[in-house]
């Protein structure tokens, strides 16, 4: 058995996890996604024994495929201008053939591509969460001004606004940036109808939360961390980056655990990072799930979390295992060890410049 990670080797979660698994004697290979380069090429041979090769790595029965963050298909830039559109669509179609085909093989996909594509949609996850018994806030997704204004006219209710995707705007020639964040909005503050059509947005009942929860789902195992930020910000993510957040392991209420496991069963995802808000009555409100969300940062805020070791135990356990991950987590080194090596430049740095970030815009 080997682990095939669909992500660049220097992805910030892939690198430490690959290092930890290899240190424990496991075989890990990376495939950054379909591209024209040698390492990005792939072949799918369909005959009596179907064969799939990703960048020189054959996909074999029993392998585990972690679809972490593959890069977009990358056609050869030397192709004729007249053929670029066609080549791009062919690359995309071939990638889809590969990604969906993986689900038909005797391998374990974390997560299945079809499940990931479905579940990443915020509309789907909110509805499914509600159907699974989780408490969800009233939500409107819209670019229709009249409907938006009607939503804001609800009585005794506060409303927040957030985007479907994160984004950063950087001023040209400056280092200051603006970043999308959940923010509260009142009916009086709504802009003109025209502006409401510039981009659809998510309008949501504000959860009167005392604190946030970041939950990590690994198969049948759920780990919940209470995130308390000193600034009591509506959106804790920036404060996490600034180090103003604490992450404390807390028990998951049985009804929430039941709902999350049902959500996982119905959606088909076996791994993900979930966000909840907890109100003064102790009720947990489901906010969202990111099926490949960041989770290793919790190890940095709480060294006892040991999510790197737990994840390594998870991906090297039989699919569907109910054995506690804690029983095998000692087989793997910690993130702190990796960080020490990184600090001393004994392992390659994570991340690399990208020519084009879809989440970044320049502005005057």
């Amino acid at each position, binding site marked *: 058995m080997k682990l095939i990670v669909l992500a660049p080797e220097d992805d910030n979660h892939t690198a430490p996890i690959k290092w930890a698994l290899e240190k424990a004697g496991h075989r890990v290979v990376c495939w950054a996604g379909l591209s024209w380069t040698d390492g990005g090429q792939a072949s799918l041979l369909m005959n009596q024994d179907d064969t799939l090769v990703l960048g020189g790595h054959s996909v074999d029965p029993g392998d585990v495929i972690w679809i972490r963050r593959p*890069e*977009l298909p990358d056609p050869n830039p030397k192709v004729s201008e007249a053929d670029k559109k066609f080549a791009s669509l062919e690359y995309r179609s071939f990638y889809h053939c590969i990604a969906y085909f993986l689900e038909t093989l005797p391998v374990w996909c974390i997560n299945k591509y079809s499940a990931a594509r479905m579940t990443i949609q915020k509309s789907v996850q909110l509805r499914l969460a509600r159907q699974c018994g989780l408490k969800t806030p009233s939500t409107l997704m819209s670019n229709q001004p009249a409907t938006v204004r009607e939503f804001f006219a609800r009585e005794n209710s506060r409303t927040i606004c957030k985007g479907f995707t*994160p984004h*950063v705007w950087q001023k040209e020639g400056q280092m200051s940036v603006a970043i999308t964040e959940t923010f509260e909005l009142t009916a009086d503050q709504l802009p003109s109808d025209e502006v*409401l059509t510039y981009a659809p947005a998510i309008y949501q009942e504000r959860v009167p939360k005392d604190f946030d929860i970041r939950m990590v789902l690994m198969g049948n195992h759920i780990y919940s961390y209470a995130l308390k930020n000193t600034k009591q910000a509506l959106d804790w993510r920036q404060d996490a*980056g600034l180090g103003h957040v604490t992450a404390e392991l807390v028990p998951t209420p049985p009804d929430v655990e039941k709902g999350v496991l049902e959500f996982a069963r119905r959606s088909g995802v076996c791994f993900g990072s979930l966000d909840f808000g907890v109100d003064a009555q102790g009720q947990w409100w489901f906010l969202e799930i990111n099926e490949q969300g960041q989770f290793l940062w919790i190890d*940095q805020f709480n060294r006892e979390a040991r999510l790197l070791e737990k994840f390594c135990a998870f991906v090297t356990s039989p699919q569907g295992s109910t054995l506690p991950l804690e029983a095998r987590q000692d087989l793997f080194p910690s993130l702190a060890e990796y960080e020490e090596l990184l600090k001393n430049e004994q392992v390659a740095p994570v*991340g690399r410049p990208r020519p084009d970030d879809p989440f970044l815009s320049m502005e005057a």
Partner: protein
Amino acid sequence: MDKNNRVLGRIGARELTEQEVDAVQGAFQVRHTLTPCFIDKKQQLLNGDQAIGECGP
């Protein structure tokens, strides 16, 4: 910022100063590259919970 034709998400965006971006980046590279909301000033990219890959939104 000229608000005349900006999207609501930009109007409500949080402005980070250069100093705040530096603070987010911090002294330990790995510490902050892992967080769910990280702006890499050097690489000019957002490293968050969501990714626009083939599984993107």
